[in-house]
């Protein structure tokens, strides 16, 4: 592949006897949207957790921009330019929308070990937080407490917080799950826009959305990569039809 932003080589993760990630080798090309699909329990979230440092693998290597980031803690991986959103909403429930984005935006200061001047005077952080809020479509909800918002809006905020850290590579774990049609379309539009300047790794069940925005597609089943290639290649793959897409249609 021409220019891989992220390479993973023979990555494995076990939970007791369960092999959630089984010898996965993949490359992600810079500037592309790479979707990962697969049935529930296929190991998609586990893979994202390994990439973001939330879990550390039993075996294998992860290279980001050529640097080995295997087993780095989450905060170091975030600082290197990998942002993630969570499948299970993971926000500061008692903070307002804006405060949620603020904490994210402030993480790009060299250090937050600053004790004397009020944080609100930090112009750059303020702008970064406002921009993220605008991008995720929550500007009108700026001062609403996050826990008081709808589930779909909380999912949007999840994306906004990720954006406020200004990452180069975005790991999105089912960003559309639980969203209404309207919100979904809005977020798909946002992802499409983000794709112009970022690399996206997108886990998503909504196949229309996947086919609409993805360049590359990987199908995972039982912790393994079943097939990987361009969207066209996967669509016409016999194995995938049987193992996954067929199943979806049968349901």
């Amino acid at each position, binding site marked *: 592949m021409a220019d891989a932003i992220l390479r993973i080589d023979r990555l494995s993760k076990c939970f007791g006897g369960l092999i959630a990630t089984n010898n996965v080798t993949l490359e992600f090309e810079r500037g592309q949207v790479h979707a990962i699909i697969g049935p529930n329990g296929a190991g998609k979230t586990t893979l994202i957790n390994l990439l973001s440092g939330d879990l550390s693998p039993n075996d294998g290597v992860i290279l980001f921009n050529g640097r080995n980031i295997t087993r780095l803690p989450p*905060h170091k991986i*975030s*600082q290197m330019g990998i942002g993630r959103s969570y499948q299970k909403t993971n926000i*500061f429930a008692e903070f307002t929308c804006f405060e949620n984005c603020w*904490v994210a935006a*402030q993480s790009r200061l060299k250090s937050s*070990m600053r*004790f004397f001047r009020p944080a609100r005077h*930090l112009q750059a952080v303020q702008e970064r937080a406002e921009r993220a809020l605008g991008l995720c479509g929550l500007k009108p909800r700026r001062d609403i407490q996050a826990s008081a918002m709808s589930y779909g809006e909380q999912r949007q905020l999840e994306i906004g917080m990720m954006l406020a850290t200004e990452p180069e590579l975005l790991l999105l774990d089912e960003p559309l799950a639980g969203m209404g049609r309207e919100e979904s379309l809005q977020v798909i539009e946002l992802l499409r826009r983000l794709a112009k300047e970022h690399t996206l790794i997108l886990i998503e069940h909504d196949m229309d959305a996947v086919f609409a925005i993805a360049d590359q597609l990987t199908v995972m089943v039982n912790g393994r990569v079943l097939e990987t290639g361009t969207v066209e290649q996967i669509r016409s793959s016999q194995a995938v039809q049987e193992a996954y897409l067929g199943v979806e249609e049968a349901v």
Partner: protein
Amino acid sequence: MSSLTRSLPLVVALLTLLLFPLFGSSFYVGLVTRIIIIAIFAMSLDLLIGYTGLVSFGHAAFFGIGGYALAIAFQDASVIPLWQALPLSLLAAGLAALVIGWISIRTSGIYFIMITLALSQMFFYYFFESPRYGGDDGIFLFLKPVLMIGSEDILNLDNENNFYYFALSSLVLTYLFLVMILQAPFGKVIKAIKANEHRVRALGYSTNGYKLVSFVLAGTLAGLAGFLEGAHTGYINPAYMSWHESGVAIAIVILGGVGTLYGPIVGAFIIVLLQNFLPELTEHWQLLLGGIVISVVLFLPRGATSLFPRLLSLIRTEKGVPLSQEESTKVDTDG
């Protein structure tokens, strides 16, 4: 609530405290001095419990170390220079907090409670069983710290009123210091850690560093309170750092209102006054005290100070300006 109406009760309280020695007898000046000292101690704990999400059950260790540092260094001195004694106490308490914090912040929840309790009990038993430092009899100090420039006394804490104002200034400075760091970038991070530490880490913060700094700052301020208590009573013993003392501090913070800073001041008034006057009423006063604490926690789960916004809103609704439920229950110090 506007910042004016919010700070009004504080200003009134401060003015009352400033004028108090003009009217109060020496006994009451001494009693309120003790309340102020306990308020500093509880406020420092509120930084951990109310703002960082660290429920420490060993906070009294730093209170005790602040007092012992003063007593050990100056028990045989002919004069206690304030500008040597005070930094020494702060440093000793801060260092102890660095050690205890470094070990304990790696755990969370109930484990954090247990490990802070265990480590502080180690300090307790060290002093309890150390004949050099008086064992369980403790150490007496016959002098009060003095602030001198050259050979000139600027401030002699031997005077009860001087001590009172020195303690009050310490309380005000502690409050302002905490407000300052809570509004600074550091404060944003620790509040976020309290809300959801996992997410803070995922956003790129090394959370242990922030928790440790918070722990050390809180320990140092507890050391300030311990220094004042030691200097005020002239008597330092292991009971200063017993788990009982840590528990009382937690009760004061919860009683007054967690995560408010001013709540612990109110809590300190309630608890210390009750501790002083209940024994005159009944010999089962501790039972009564426990009952009062439990009732407040049951009926005012956000602490005694959550009454203030309610009262304010009651006054306002009587004037015909209704206040939304959300606003009336919201109690926070940053605007």
